[in-house]
């Protein structure tokens, strides 16, 4: 039962009557504040839930690739000199729907790119069926700035990568090139494509064994020799014979890989690992070494090479007939076909093939290029084939393979595989033993004799002790049946310094004329090259006599 409290009721009533007019707005304010606070709390709670569970919707995925990432790594030479790099370029784009006056826009763009076809440009800019059209690729930053300064509506840029070869035409065939989408098309770019991509992702360069300074010396001397001999082409390779590292790889004529599309197709040819030739007399040292190795001759044997040598009804003769007794040294220094043929026949086809295989002349080289041409090795059908192979015919191989074979004279009879990748310090080098050290030493004496008083005298550089062999192989004539004495493949292959061999050089000129033999056109170029590069290799040469 509710107690009666007349006093309290009476006492509150007058107060209630007095307070009533202000209580309603106060309650409203409180309610308003409470509702506001509730809304704020709900909003914040929702945001907190969103942040706590869903993360920041503004945040992009974290960058995982290194800042230096490029799709293709830089290529540097053995000293870190930049040979190929990927730079940022821009694609000029247009959104036709945003362009009000295509003709005016086209005229504006042609101020910067006068070669753009006006009509084609207007057609593209008016193509309302497409959201975006590409107008030009590989813009430089300067071109981009110039276009941007025009403030053309609907014109924009997209980032792209562009391959650049800062050395221009230097080592062009060795480096190769990519197309506009950075797809590798030739040279190391293609041969080492996977490694270049992997290195690009890691932001590190690919280091080649080439040396830009040596490459330049070799290329300029090769070009001078080729022009002087009216050759159709030429190639040269210089190898560190102990490690197999290729220090220079040159082909002539050359091209600028920055504008490979404009170069004649013939200029793109890598003539060192891509062209096959019957190598001629540069093979003879191997024939002599094989015969010594097999005990079919001895350093003291005397030969009579004064008469043509009949084999299967064909006469093998020498350009310079050796009258009187001849030694193995004479066979090489005077480049006797008769002597080499006799030694080859003593060996027989099987042993000859065995050694040629070990020398790497019957298989393609493994330079890290787009293409290593496999040799042409016709089957041995007669004694004449064996004899011919003894002095460099009946077998077509590349200069790179020949250079690889000559490494036996640097490594005590062991062959080292040529490579274009710089060797790491202490890296294991695979060697294939072909000849004994004693046979190799004997051959070095003979090869030195070729340069001191034989056909290769022009390759001599006082103080450097060059040893090597000249080669002059007649090329097949138009009928493809007989040899044309007016078209030669003239070459020189050698090692230096002979007292402590370290390097191998092969230089050859294609389609030299009659009388332009290896000793006359290739050997002098080798001599000039070696004089230039010897200081770069830390080798001393005697100074030239003063010219006044």
């Amino acid at each position, binding site marked *: 039962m509710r107690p009666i409290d007349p006093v309290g009721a009476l006492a509150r009533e007058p107060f209630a009557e007095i307070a009533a007019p202000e209580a309603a707005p106060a309650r409203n304010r409180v309610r308003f504040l409470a509702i506001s606070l509730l809304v704020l709390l709900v909003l914040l709670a929702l945001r907190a839930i969103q942040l706590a569970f869903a993360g920041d919707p503004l945040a992009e995925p974290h*960058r995982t690739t290194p800042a230096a990432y490029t799709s293709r790594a830089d290529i540097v030479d053995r000293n870190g000199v930049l040979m190929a790099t990927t*730079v940022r370029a821009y694609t000029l784009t247009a959104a036709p729907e945003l362009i009000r006056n295509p003709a005016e826009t086209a005229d504006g763009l042609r101020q910067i790119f006068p070669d753009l076809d006006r009509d084609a440009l207007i057609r593209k800019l008016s193509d309302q069926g497409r959201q975006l059209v590409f107008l030009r690729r590989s813009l430089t930053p300067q071109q981009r700035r110039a276009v941007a300064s025009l403030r053309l509506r609907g014109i924009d840029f997209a980032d792209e990568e562009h391959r650049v070869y800062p050395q221009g035409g*230097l080592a062009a065939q060795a480096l190769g090139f990519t197309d506009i989408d950075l797809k590798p098309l030739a040279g190391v770019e293609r041969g080492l494509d996977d490694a270049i991509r992997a290195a690009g992702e890691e932001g590190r360069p690919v280091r080649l064994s080439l040396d830009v300074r040596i490459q330049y010396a070799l290329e300029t001397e090769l070009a001078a020799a080729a022009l002087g001999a009216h050759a159709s082409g030429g190639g040269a390779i210089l190898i560190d014979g102990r490690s197999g590292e290729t220090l220079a790889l040159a082909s002539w004529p050359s091209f600028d890989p920055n504008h490979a599309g404009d170069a004649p197709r013939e200029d793109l040819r890598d003539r060192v690992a891509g062209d096959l030739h019957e190598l001629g007399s540069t093979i003879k040292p191997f024939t002599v070494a094989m015969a010594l190795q097999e005990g079919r001759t001895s350093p003291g044997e005397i030969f009579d090479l004064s008469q043509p040598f009949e084999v299967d009804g064909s006469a093998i003769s020498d350009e310079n007939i050796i009258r009187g007794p001849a030694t193995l040294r004479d066979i090489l220094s005077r480049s006797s076909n008769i002597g080499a043929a006799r030694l080859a026949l003593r060996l027989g086809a099987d042993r000859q093939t065995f050694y040629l295989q070990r020398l790497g002349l019957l298989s393609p080289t493994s330079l890290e290029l787009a293409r290593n041409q496999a040799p042409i090795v016709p089957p041995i059908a007669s004694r004449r084939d064996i004899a011919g192979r003894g002095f460099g015919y009946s077998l077509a191989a590349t200069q790179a393979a020949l250079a690889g074979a000559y490494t036996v004279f640097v490594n005590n009879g062991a062959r080292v595989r040529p490579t274009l990748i710089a060797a790491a310090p202490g890296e294991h080098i695979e060697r294939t033993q072909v000849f004994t050290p004693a046979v190799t030493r004997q051959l070095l004496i003979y090869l030195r004799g070729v340069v001191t008083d034989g056909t290769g005298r022009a390759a001599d550089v006082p103080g450097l002790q060059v040893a090597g062999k000249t080669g002059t192989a007649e090329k097949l004539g138009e009928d493809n049946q007989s040899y044309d004495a007016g078209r030669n493949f003239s070459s020189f292959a050698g090692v230096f310094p002979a007292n402590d061999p370290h390097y191998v050089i092969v230089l050859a000129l294609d389609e030299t004329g009659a009388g332009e033999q290896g000793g006359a056109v290739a050997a002098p170029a080798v001599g000039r090259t070696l004089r230039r590069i010897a200081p770069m290799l830390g080798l001393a040469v005697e100074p030239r006599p003063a010219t*006044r």
Partner: protein
Amino acid sequence: MRRALHIFMALLIVVLVVGLYKAKTDAAQTEAYVRQLQHQIVDEEADQRALNADIARLESPGRVQDLAQAHQNSLKLSPGAQGQALPEAEIGARLPAPRGARANPSLHP
């Protein structure tokens, strides 16, 4: 007491939520700043690659030789001849005196 506790809890929630919001927003801003810096680094590296390419082009042996040949006449440069070399005995006489020796004349009669 109970009412005060409610108010305190509500304030605590507000403080926590606002604190979390601020922390996450600051983190997002910092991340955006880092992304901006990374873009800047990429841009700088792209510029650096272009500059490196330009340096390599300028230093390429062919270009240097062309320049040398172009300026050969104006600078009157030519390879040294053997006759220009001094005999070893004369080298000492041609060298400038050491600094200390110059200060003390008694060492150089």
